């Protein structure tokens, strides 16, 4: 009787040891990977972003666990664990896709807002530029009108003075031209101003001085008739132009604005064959050109 009890006890112990040994067989690597993949997916954003897909992955893992409990080493167990692992990885990827889509949506909204702000800013800049342009245009127009008016006044003043001095005056493209007859200015063949000439030029000087100070360019041109050689006529015309220039400078006209040029017989205004024509050709011209706007 005692012997039977002992035997039974040993059999029970052996069976228990066998069961413990079987139960502690380690799960296949694939199942461990599947569990890890699911835990990773579960702890991330998948639970909130793709809950249905996460649930499917959980179902797949449960199937693998059930197969493992039925037969830990069966090929089906490994296959189901493999499928569960991949499904968990798919869930993670799907969650990342959702996150990326949300990032893109936010960025796109921000882009639209920035583009709208950019358009508004560009519009404001354009409007400011147009306003500035309009102001500048008005200023330029006013300046141009003022300059024209000043030039007109200067021309009229010069004309009045020239007329008062009994001198011919004309408007040409090169400016206001005042003609001083040679017989009034100089003795024949000489370049010294006569007293009457000085009086007439002195009348002009004040007006020329103010215009010179405003930047007007004054050119004094000496002209002769065709008698005598070209060289002597050129020298005489230059000497006469210099003489007039020097007198104007002595009267206060800015020297840097006056140029004296001898033209000789090159530009006659009348026939050199007649005494009257030659008298008209012997002359000094003072050309006044208004200064350029600054």
């Amino acid at each position, binding site marked *: 009787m005692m012997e039977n009890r002992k035997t039974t006890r040993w059999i029970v112990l052996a069976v228990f040891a066998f069961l413990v040994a079987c139960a502690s067989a380690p799960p296949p690597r694939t199942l461990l990977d599947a569990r890890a993949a699911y835990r990773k997916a579960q702890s991330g954003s998948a639970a909130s972003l793709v809950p249905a897909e996460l649930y499917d992955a959980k179902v797949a893992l449960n199937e693998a666990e059930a197969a493992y409990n039925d037969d830990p080493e069966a090929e089906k167990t490994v296959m189901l664990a*493999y499928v569960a692992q*991949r499904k968990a990885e*798919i869930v993670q990827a799907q969650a*990342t896709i959702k996150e*990326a889509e949300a*990032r*893109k949506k936010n*960025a796109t909204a*921000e882009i639209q807002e*920035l583009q709208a702000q950019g358009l508004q800013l560009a519009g404001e800049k354009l409007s400011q530029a147009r306003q500035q342009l309009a102001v500048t245009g008005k200023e330029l127009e006013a300046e141009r009108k003022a300059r024209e008016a000043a030039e007109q006044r200067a021309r009229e003043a010069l004309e009045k003075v020239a007329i008062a001095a009994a001198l011919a005056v004309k408007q040409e493209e090169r400016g206001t031209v005042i003609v001083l007859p040679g017989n009034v200015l100089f003795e024949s063949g000489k370049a010294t101003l006569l007293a009457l000439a000085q009086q007439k030029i002195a009348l002009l000087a004040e007006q020329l001085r103010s215009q010179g100070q405003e930047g007007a360019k004054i050119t004094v041109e000496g002209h002769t008739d065709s008698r005598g050689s070209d060289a002597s006529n050129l020298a005489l015309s230059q000497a006469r132009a210099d003489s007039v220039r020097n007198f104007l400078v002595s009267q206060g006209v800015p020297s840097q604005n006056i140029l004296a040029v001898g033209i000789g017989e090159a530009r006659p205004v009348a026939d050199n064959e007649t005494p009257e024509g030659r008298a008209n050709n012997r002359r000094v011209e003072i050309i006044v050109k208004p200064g350029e706007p600054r």
Partner: protein
Amino acid sequence: MRRKINLWTPFFTLFLLLGCGGAAPPDRQMVSAEAAIRAAQELGAPNVPQASLSLRQAVGQVDKAKALMRDGNNARAAMMLARAQVDAELAIALTKENTAKAEAQEAEDTVVELKNKMKSLGR
């Protein structure tokens, strides 16, 4: 005695057929796995490193399944196709993930670029 044996013979044969013939060919799983592989290829999985790896695994498993089916081992072929299916689906998901991340990054880069431009314009 001899007559009795003849009576059991058809049952025994049927038992053998049911036991060895096994599962039907997994044709539908094959179609599904191959469709998933094509979808992954069309999405551009071969150009995404991680997706490309999964795609290659899926293709390899389909090839193995075909060999198993030729040998009549349909049950193992079905398991191989189940693996191929999830590998192809993973390749698709990884390809879409790659595209979505790139698009998000591009949009965010544009935001930074626009902000810099706005700064340079004086706002």
